[in-house]
């Protein structure tokens, strides 16, 4: 129901200053599905996400939202369709959960309309979906990491956008909270048909929770498609530079990458041993 909004990049290059990080990229993000962008550190995956969210202006090419350049559209209009949870947002001291989540309504508000019934309902819905109801009067800076991440997701949900972008939403969380966050995103996608695009570090979690994978290396896309198709020994080798075996995840049946020991280092150790 919610998401027939299309996001894509057309020959996009992105960078900081004169250093290009993402080079001439072309891809689309399937509406209504979960897409994970994976790759080694510095491959440009977060940069790509920043470009999608309009935080970076492409040095060439265009980011297209519903067929039009995202930079040619009004900020608030874009913010009604595209939400972003960046890495390390700031928690103002003493701000309560409910106040924080309410701020996600910014693009829908105006000088006269600052707390409409729709605003209130969206905030309630976001608190309910993320199970942060009970925390509503607590100051955000007093919450644990896992609770805090759910609150941030609630803020982006209150924004009520058909497309959600998340930059490494599981970093700094323990495994239980990682699964909780990813499970929540899956739920949102399935129940509300929201398009979810996230940058993930963990390849196996990406394969388990996403419908579509984009594997990047040195600012370019190595492979894109469903995990079953693109998660191969060769792609893993190319993207992460490691040798691995791909097996079926014993729980979900999705592909799972089991790295082999680093043979190069082993060789070096072997030679050193012989020299001694």
């Amino acid at each position, binding site marked *: 129901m919610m998401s027939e909004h299309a996001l894509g990049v057309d020959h996009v290059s992105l960078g900081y200053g004169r250093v290009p990080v993402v080079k001439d990229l072309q891809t689309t993000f399937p509406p209504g599905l979960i897409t994970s962008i994976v790759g080694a550190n510095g491959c440009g995956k977060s940069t790509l996400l920043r470009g999608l969210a309009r*935080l970076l202006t492409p040095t060439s090419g265009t980011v297209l939202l519903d067929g039009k350049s995202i930079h040619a559209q009004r900020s608030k209009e874009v913010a009604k369709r595209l939400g972003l949870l960046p890495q390390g947002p700031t928690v103002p001291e003493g701000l309560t959960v409910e106040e924080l989540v309410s701020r996600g309504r910014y693009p829908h508000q105006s000088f006269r309309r600052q707390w409409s019934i729709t605003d209130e309902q969206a905030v309630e819905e976001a608190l309910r979906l993320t199970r942060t109801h009970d925390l509503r009067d607590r100051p955000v800076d007093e919450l644990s990491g896992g609770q805090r991440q759910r609150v941030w997701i609630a803020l982006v949900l209150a924004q009520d956008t058909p497309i959600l972008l998340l930059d490494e939403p599981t970093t700094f969380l323990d495994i239980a909270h990682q699964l909780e966050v990813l499970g929540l995103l899956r739920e949102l996608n399935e129940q509300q048909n929201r398009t979810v695009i996230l940058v993930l570090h963990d390849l196996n979690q990406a394969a388990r929770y996403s419908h579509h994978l984009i594997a990047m290396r040195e600012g370019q896309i190595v492979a894109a498609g469903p995990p079953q198709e693109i998660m191969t020994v060769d792609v893993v080798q190319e993207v992460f530079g490691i040798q691995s075996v791909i097996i079926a995840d014993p729980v979900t049946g999705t592909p799972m990458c089991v790295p082999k020991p680093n043979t190069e280092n082993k060789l070096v150790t072997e030679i050193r041993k012989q020299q001694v």
Partner: protein
Amino acid sequence: MMRRVSVRVARPEFSRQISTRSVTVLLVVLAATTVAIILTTAYGDYSVPLNRTVEAILGNGDPIDTLVIRDHRLPRVLMCVLVGAALALSGGVFQTLTRNPLAAPDIIGVTQGAAVVAVWMILRGLPEAVLPVGAFAGAMAALAVVAVLGVRRDLSMYRLILIGIGLNTLIGAAVTYLIARANAVERERLNLAEQWLVGSTSATTWPKVGIAAGTLALLTPAILSCGRSLNTLQLGDDLGAALGVPIRRLQLTTVSLAALLAAVAVSVTGPIGFVAFVSPHIARRLTGTAGVASMPTAMGVGGLLLLIADYAAQRVLEPSQLPVGYVTIVLGAPYLLYLLVRGESRMGA
């Protein structure tokens, strides 16, 4: 516990969420300020009963009352309230924009810019009446330097602050130089210069009050109307931009307006310390909100604080009178230390 009330009107469409605590606190602070205005106008080395005070204010009291109340005390009292409010609002904006609870408008160089010109003018013996004009020009010049050096395609608050700090040091040295190389004639005026540098309301005149009131009346609505965007920007530049806040425009507008407020305040009273820094803190505590909703309360607190400090400055060491700036330092510095010790001031956290 925070109670919030939703206010909604269907036609024309209007809706707000109001924290009852914020509103209550604001009303109490305003009431306290009003009482303080009346009391500090009536009482002093020559005390006037309250009914005669009111008559004098309205202009039909006895001549001596009218002279003391209308020409002498009332402008000074009002100036305290206006300047305190202006500094508090300016400080609140700087603390919000920099996400640093220790920030104050001084960091952008306006205070020192005003000081160097004012000190020069005092030492040259220029008339008191033109001091505010010179000080304001100095403040604007400093702001212009910061703007030229600091404003790039992406406006980084961090860079702006660093440039402000550098400029402050440089101008501070210039002030010291002016004082150090003062000749025999100028030396006799050093006292005045030093008094100006501490901040004082003793030279208040009605026209100055008018300038302060006019500035505040114009800039307060302009700043508060950016409140929702400022609140959103508190969440970080990335999230702010993703939510559709026009970050660069907002930062440029609000920094300029807040700096202008501080510049006018410094021009009419000299650099009164700590009010801009302390008042937003107290208001956030009282209202229990981290957002812009605490700013009207901060203005009330700033006005009340400066009023009380000024009264104390006149009465504590009677018959000798202190510049109010000494009192705000004596009150404000321990508060800063207290915040630091309690670890309340997590820088940018």
